C-alpha cells in the first residue's frame, strides 16, 4: 500500500487514551531532557567530542531530516542530496563573501532558499516520472552540480585549490569559530528546523505529501494537488539539505569542497533515513547517530581489540559490507527503522507505568 515506510497517525493507535497520555508526556519529557543534555554538553565534552562526533551528528541529522521530508513523507526518492548540500554551501559562501553586511542566520537561510529553488527545478521531472526513473533524474542533478562547482571558478571565488576556507563565523558580533560556538550554531539551527518540520508534517502540507506517497494517482483522483505537493516537497527538502550543507562546510569541515558532497554522501544520507526510519522525525537522529558512531566504533574496535591487525582499507570494506547488510536487514525486518523499534519499546514502557 504505502510506497515507503508508513507511520501510524499519532493519536489513532490501538492504545487507550490513558496510555496515549502517558506516552505523550514521556515523549515531551524525554525531548526536554535530550535538549537540556545537548545544551549542557559543551560544559563537559572536550573539543574532540564536539568536532568529531556531535557537530557531524547534528548536521547529518539535519540532512537526513531534509531527505526524509522528501522521501519518507512525500515518497519521492532522491540521490541528489550531496548536490543540494553543495548548492547550500556554495550559495552561503558567496552570500557571506559578496554581501558581508548580511547577518549569518540570514545568509544561511538565503543559501537554503537558493538550494530549495534549485530543488524545485530538479524536482520538475517528478511531475512526469516516478520511482527509480526519478532516482536516475536526481542522479543527473547530482552529477551536474558536482561538475558545475568544480568547473566554474566564480563559485569558489577563483580559489586556486579546489577547497576554499570558510569565512569567519559570527552572529551579531559574537565570534562563533570556537568548537563550542560552532556547536551551538549547529544545535540552534537543528532545533529550529526540527520544530518547523514537525509542525509542517502534521499540517495540510504534510497530509498532502503522505497522500502522494501512498498513491499519487489515487491522491490526484480525490483532488489533492499532486504537482504542487511534489514541488513543495522538493523545495522544503532541498532548503533543509542546503542549510545542512552550509553547516557541513562552515561549522564542521571549515572548508567548502565539492568533493565532500559527492554521490557517496547522498548514499550515506539515504542509508541514515532507512536505518533510522522513513516517515519519522526522530528516526533522522537515530539514523544519523548510527551513521556517525558506527565507523568510529569500528575504528576503535579494529585499533584496540585487534591491535591494528586490520588495516584502514580493510576496515572501510568491512564498514561498507556492514552498512549494506544492515540496510537489507532493516528493509526486510523493520522497514520503519530504529524509530519504530524504539517506539515499540516506548509503548511497552508507558504501559508498565499505567499498571
Amino acid at each position, binding site marked *: 500500500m504505502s510506497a515507503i515506510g508508513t507511520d501510524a497517525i499519532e493519536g489513532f493507535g490501538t492504545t487507550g487514551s490513558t496510555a496515549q497520555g502517558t506516552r505523550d508526556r514521556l515523549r515531551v519529557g524525554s525531548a526536554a531532557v535530550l535538549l537540556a543534555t545537548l545544551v549542557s554538553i559543551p560544559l563537559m565534552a572536550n573539543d574532540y567530542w564536539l568536532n568529531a562526533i556531535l557537530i557531524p551528528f547534528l548536521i547529518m541529522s539535519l540532512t537526513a531530516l531534509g531527505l526524509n521530508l522528501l522521501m519518507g513523507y512525500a515518497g519521492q*526518492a532522491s540521490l541528489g542530496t550531496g548536490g543540494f548540500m553543495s548548492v547550500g554551501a556554495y550559495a552561503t559562501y558567496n552570500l557571506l563573501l559578496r554581501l558581508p553586511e548580511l547577518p549569518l542566520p540570514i545568509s544561511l537561510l538565503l543559501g537554503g532558499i537558493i538550494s530549495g529553488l534549485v530543488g524545485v527545478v530538479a524536482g520538475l521531472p517528478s511531475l512526469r*516520472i516516478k*520511482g527509480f526513473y526519478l532516482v*536516475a533524474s536526481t542522479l543527473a542533478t547530482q*552529477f551536474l552540480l558536482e561538475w558545475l562547482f568544480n568547473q566554474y571558478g566564480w563559485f569558489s571565488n577563483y580559489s586556486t585549490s579546489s577547497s576554499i576556507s570558510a569565512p569567519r563565523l559570527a552572529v551579531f558580533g559574537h565570534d562563533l569559530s570556537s568548537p563550542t560556538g560552532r556547536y551551538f550554531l549547529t544545535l540552534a539551527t537543528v532545533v529550529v528546523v526540527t520544530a518547523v518540520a514537525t509542525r509542517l508534517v502534521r499540517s495540510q502540507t504534510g497530509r498532502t505529501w503522505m497522500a502522494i506517497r501512498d498513491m499519487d494517482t489515487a491522491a490526484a483522483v480525490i483532488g489533492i494537488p499532486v504537482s504542487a505537493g511534489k514541488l513543495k516537497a522538493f523545495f522544503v527538502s532541498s532548503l533543509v539539505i542546503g542549510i545542512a550543507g552550509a553547516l557541513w562546510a562552515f561549522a564542521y569541515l571549515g572548508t567548502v569542497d565539492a568533493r565532500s558532497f559527492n*554521490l557517496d554522501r547522498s548514499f550515506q544520507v*539515504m542509508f541514515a533515513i532507512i536505518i533510522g526510519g522513513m516517515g519519522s522525525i526522530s528516526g533522522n537522529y537515530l539514523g544519523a547517530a548510527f551513521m556517525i558512531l558506527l565507523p568510529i566504533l569500528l575504528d576503535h574496535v579494529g585499533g584496540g581489540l585487534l591491535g591494528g591487525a586490520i588495516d584502514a582499507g580493510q576496515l572501510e*570494506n568491512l564498514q561498507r559490507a556492514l552498512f*549494506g547488510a544492515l540496510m537489507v536487514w532493516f528493509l526486510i525486518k523493520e*522497514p520503519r527503522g530504529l524509530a519504530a523499534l524504539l517506539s515499540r519499546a516506548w509503548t511497552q514502557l508507558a504501559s508498565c507505568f499505567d499498571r
Partner: protein
Amino acid sequence: MSFFVETLVGGLLAGVMYSLVAIGFVLVFKASGVFNFAQGSMVLCAALTFVTLRDKGLDFWLAALITLSVMVALGIAVERVVLRPLVNRPQITLFMATLGVSFVIEGVAQIVMGASVHELDLGIVDTPIEIGGVQVSQFDLAAAGTAGILVVALSIFFNKTRVGIALRAIADDPQAALSIGIRLQTLWQIVWGVAGFVSLIAGLLWGARQGVQFALTLVVLKALPVLIIGGFTSIAGAIIGGLIVGAGDSVAEIYLGSLLGGSVSTWFAYVLAVAFLLVRPAGLFGEAPIERI
C-alpha cells in the same frame, strides 16, 4: 569529417560496453521487476574472482568456469536471501535492498580478494586497425562482437527455449503465469543465475579494458542512463540506448566539452536520459505502466 566519424565510431563501440552491463539489468527487471543496483558490484566481483584465480596460476577456462559458478551462486543467493522475503513490497524498496546488497558484495569481495588494481589480459591485441580510413580499436570491436553474440544467444534463449518462454510469461503477468503452473521462484533463480553469467562477461571485458579495480562498480552509473533511454524491459532497447549514450558521450565531450571547459561526460548521459524521459517516460522501447486504483 573523418575525425568526427572516428569519434562517433569510438563512442558507439564504447556504448556497446555500456549495453553489456545494461543487459544484466534488463534480464532481472523483466523477470522479477527488481531494479538490480548490485549489477555493478557483480561485475566487479566477477572480474576480481577471475583475476585472483588466474593469479593463482589457474587455466583460463578453469578460472572462467569457477568464476561462473561463483557468480551464478551469488545471483541465486541474492534472490533467496534478500529478494524472496521482500516479495510484494514496493519496487523502490527492492531497489534500495539491492543498493544494500551492492555494498555488501563490494565490501566482502575486497576483504577477501584485496583492493589493489589487477591487470587482466584476455589475449586480445589492442592495436587500432584502419577500416575505410577510420581508426578503430580492435579490442572494442571484439567487445562489440561479444555483445552481439550475447544478444543473439539471449534472444534465442528467450524466444525458443521453454524456460525462456516461461520467463516471458512471468514478465507479462506473474499472476497468470503462476496459475498455469509456472514455477515462479525456480525461474527467478534461473534469471539471477543468467544475470550472474552476463556480469561475468561484462566483468571480463571491462576488467581487461580498465584494469580490475573498485572503479568498475561505477559502470552501473554509466548503465543507468542507457536503461532509461532504452527502457527497462527491452534487450534491444539496452543495445540502442547504449549506442546513443556512447555516441552522445564522446561527441559531446569533443564539441560541447570544448565549449564548456571539459569533462561533460560525467553528466551528459544523465541529462540526455532525463530529456528522453520527459518525452517518453517509459523509455524508447519500454512499456508504459497502466495504473489502477
